[in-house]
């Protein structure tokens, strides 16, 4: 099948899938009355799943293209550990207000990338990809240690909040927060889409990109910033949800090819659909209780990734 036709087919399928997710809840199957408490909660929940999934998948696509590494995901440069550290600090310090935790998580994620990039760059020159990756891994593990320290100091009641946050959850604390995250993810995605030809050139290597007229250094720095923006917004809203940002870009590439003009829309749609579907499962399997959505994404995403790995027998980024 033609890749373009496949893309449109997938888009229609994804919208149908989202509609299905709206009809499924812990109470059973069926459309709720959209003005009722249940209706409001469900549509915001599905919207949150879509925003977070799309944000993580967009960040994953960018990271994999910029770092030219199929194992890259939104968290590879420490966005997750930085955001977790920010969130834990907010919980331990008892910051008030329901924007305190997501706000400090977002700031933690964004500042971490800045730190990783600065550490990797030798005196104002462009850092190599290896330096960025290494710096990301080391900063991540240092922040991981700090996080563990905060957790050991946390009051017993706060521990539950941190643990749940690290497993990821789409229980949105406020509709305003959801809108803020949606705006950030949409802006990040639109900017990434506008520069799709740049990412295409960069996947061939910085030298080739330079030869076709792309300012590689600015493009890499800008791309990392966009990836961090969308990933931090997603993490601030829902905590650390794994696998979506790693698996979806590969799945989308298998579906519509490696051209970022098609890959970015497909990944955003696919990420939104995958996470919403996983969350529908997480909130519906039990009539009154929930399981953390991160467990579902890992249980479904891991085997799916292995399936892709076996089918393709190798990688073409």
């Amino acid at each position, binding site marked *: 099948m033609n890749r373009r036709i496949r893309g449109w087919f997938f888009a229609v399928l994804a919208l149908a899938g989202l509609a299905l997710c709206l009809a499924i*809840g*812990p*109470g059973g199957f069926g459309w709720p009355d959209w*003005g*009722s*408490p*249940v*209706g*409001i*909660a*469900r549509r*915001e*929940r599905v919207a949150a799943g879509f925003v977070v999934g799309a944000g993580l998948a967009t960040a994953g696509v960018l990271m994999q293209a910029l770092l030219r590494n199929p194992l890259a995901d939104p968290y590879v440069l420490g966005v997750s550990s930085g955001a977790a550290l920010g969130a834990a600090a907010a919980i331990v310090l*008892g910051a*008030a*207000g*329901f924007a305190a*935790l997501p706000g400090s998580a977002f700031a933690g994620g964004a500042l971490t990338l800045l730190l990783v990039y600065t550490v990797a760059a030798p005196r104002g020159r462009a850092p190599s990809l290896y330096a960025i990756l290494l710096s990301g891994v080391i900063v991540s593990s240092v922040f991981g240690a700090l996080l563990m320290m905060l957790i050991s100091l946390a*009051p*017993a*009641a706060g521990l*539950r*909040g941190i643990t*749940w*946050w690290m497993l990821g*959850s789409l*229980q*949105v*604390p*406020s*509709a*305003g927060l*959801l809108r803020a995250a949606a705006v950030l993810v949409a802006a990040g995605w639109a900017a990434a889409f506008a520069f799709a030809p740049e990412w295409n050139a960069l996947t061939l290597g910085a030298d080739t990109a330079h030869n076709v007229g792309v300012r590689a250094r600015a493009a890499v720095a800008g791309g990392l910033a966009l990836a961090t923006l969308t990933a931090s917004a997603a993490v601030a809203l829902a905590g650390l949800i794994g696998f979506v940002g790693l698996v979806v870009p590969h799945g989308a590439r298998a579906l519509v090819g490696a051209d970022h003009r098609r890959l970015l829309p497909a990944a955003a749609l696919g990420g939104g659909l995958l996470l919403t579907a996983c969350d529908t499962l997480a*909130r519906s399997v*039990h*009539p*009154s*209780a*929930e399981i953390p959505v991160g467990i579902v994404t890992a249980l479904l995403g891991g085997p799916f990734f292995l399936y892709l790995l076996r089918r393709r027998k190798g990688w073409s980024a």
Partner: protein
Amino acid sequence: MNAAAPNPGRAAARVAVVGLCAGWLAGCGPRATPPATPPGAERIVSLAPNLTEIVCAVGAADLLVGRSSACDYPPDIVARVPVAGDFGRPATERLLALRPTLVLAADLEDKSLPEGLRRAGIRFDVVNCRTLDDIPRAIREVGRLCGRGAEAEALAVRIERGIAERRAAADATARPVVYAELWHDPILTVGAGSFISEMIGLAGGRNLGDTVAREYFEASPEWVLAAAPDIILGLGMDGAADFEARLRARPGFAALRAVRERRIVTGIPPDLLLRPGPRVLEATDELKRRLAAAVERAAP
């Protein structure tokens, strides 16, 4: 506090000091014949707030040499008792430095701690309070352990009678459904079998979470919304002064009838409400008063 180094001279001095204190207590205590402290209960450390309250309520506050950081009642007594660590998570060295002879705990994070303490010759007892009926039982147990059996018996009987009276008086019909929120992120509520659920019953309500046979569980927000509870009770464990604002911000909750009609009950001190201890009757009565006031608001 100095690290406890083995020092025979200091140990002798310690015995002398304890002896002096005991003598002082025997001579100048408020009672004519003070109860004898059984051997092994001279220095008590309580690692749970409700047990600290029970120790004080049975008249053994003067034996208390350590507490958890969560023990905050009675305020005048806990202010002079040093902290041996967090609730269920003692700092072992600090605990040992208090030279306890008896350690009381409810739940422990480190399950190997009791064995270590017992090897060090320290008596260790776990006293659990999961249901209302566990409370008088726990009071008798603590009373027996610290040699205040008579006081404990009187207190236990008073609480047993109080619970029985309130059970008999609780109206079985037309009870408002109460959604009790313990924690906000994720939302955590109480199920059947927790003493809080029983207290809601005695206070004239019906706990929404009673359909789930667990003490506490992470509730699905949609399930709470679909159940449309009559009253929303913020238990205050997260110490949130802005419980109502937080509730309204959550998708769908502002459209709930209970929220629209402001049948939201918050502000009962968590040390009273969330503690299965000697003040359980006071807590139940306060809850009953507040639930009734919320129902009044619903009436036209």
